[in-house]
């Protein structure tokens, strides 16, 4: 609009940010210089200051946050899994490809956060339990029937690409995750190999050698399941 400097208009525009304290020091300086010579802007500043004070004074009711917070925790608890919602239904129905699922998990929670979740909390989910136990949330009922054979936790610096490479080389896929995403359950990509305990032990040993792997262990399977 104005190509020439117009201190009056510039000051007028800056007044709200002076009033709410978000103006920069340089803006404060330029406003102050103009205010010293412009009664109009001084009036405006005074009125806006008054208006802001009035707005803050008008609404200072006390709300008890606790009932709402408790309802919110109940709502969070009622949610089956952070991973399950927000994903297209097709990915819950077994049509997903293993890598797509892994990518979704990693993108959803951020690799850097995995390890932090691991420490400082009891690890009942990570104890040797049947994978169908409450601590694990299945990503897909179709793959859950196959069951995870290896539990994996990677370090915060492990990139998605690195994890992808790791699992690709081990011919493993993510089939489960703990509810808090602290650990992944892995299964072989080739179903025919899933019965081989030797192969599982070999894959675990190999994973433990890889940079970024904090934990790799076979998942104990109760007799008569998953075989």
């Amino acid at each position, binding site marked *: 609009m104005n190509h020439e400097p117009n201190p009056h208009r510039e000051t007028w525009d800056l007044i709200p*940010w002076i009033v709410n304290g978000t103006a920069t020091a340089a803006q404060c300086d330029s406003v102050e210089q103009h205010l010293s010579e412009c009664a109009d802007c001084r009036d405006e500043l005074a009125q806006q*200051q008054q208006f802001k004070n009035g707005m803050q004074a*008008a609404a200072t*009711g006390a709300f008890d*946050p606790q009932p709402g917070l408790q309802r919110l925790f109940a709502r969070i608890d009622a949610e089956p899994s952070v991973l399950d919602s927000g994903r297209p239904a097709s990915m819950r129905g077994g049509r997903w490809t293993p890598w797509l699922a892994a990518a979704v998990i990693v993108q959803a929670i951020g690799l850097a956060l995995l390890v932090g979740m691991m420490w400082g909390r009891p690890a009942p989910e990570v104890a040797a339990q049947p994978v169908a136990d409450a601590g694990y949330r299945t990503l897909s009922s179709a793959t859950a029937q196959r069951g995870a054979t290896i539990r994996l936790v990677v370090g915060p610096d492990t990139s998605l690409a690195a994890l992808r490479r790791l699992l690709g080389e081990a011919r493993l896929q993510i089939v489960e995750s703990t509810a808090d995403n602290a650990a992944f359950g892995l299964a072989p990509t080739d179903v025919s190999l899933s019965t081989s305990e030797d192969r599982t032990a070999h894959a675990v040993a190999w994973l433990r050698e890889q940079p970024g792997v904090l934990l790799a262990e076979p998942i104990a399977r109760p007799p008569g399941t998953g075989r």
Partner: protein
Amino acid sequence: MKSITDDRNPRNADTASDADGDAVEQLLLAAVGRGDRIAFERLYLRQHGLLARFIARHTARRDLIDEIINDAFWVVWRKAAEFRGESKVATWIIGIAYRCMLKALRQNVPSAEQDLDEGFELAGTESSEAEQRELSDWVRRGLDLLSPEQRMTLELAYYLGQSCDEIASIMNCANGTVKARLFHARLRLRNSLPALGGDVAANAPVRK
């Protein structure tokens, strides 16, 4: 001589504590991203009062205020790990609450004129109750003169202390739109709202 801008920058006076507050909230939010409920509760309690009073400016229904805050914090709980520090944590949460509020208000169109001050105590014990009442009546008359967008912009600026850029991001509009809304809002106030405790004549129409 005392500088005219000296005592009107409460946030400048404690810029350090403002920055510290955001640093604390960044840590809390990062912990929430890892599923930490204690951090979540602390963040909720830090933001609840201001958000509740901000939303209360738009609806007098306590149940709706609760619902909006919980919808917003439900999103915070689920999206915390995706926060990349592109704004202050408070601004990020205000933006989420703003969208939840617009949605809730669209779905719950008030059937009658609401008394927004219902149930609220007036702040401050230093000035008399009558003065406080006069001030809040004056502000309400002023806000009534404005369009919904102008009122919202002013509330984000004066009530929640958000900067021009922050308001643009919360309202998902251009920086210039924020400036234009405030410009026209203030022109309206300047020309139509009598000065507090005075009359309209006390305010000369603004020079362009």
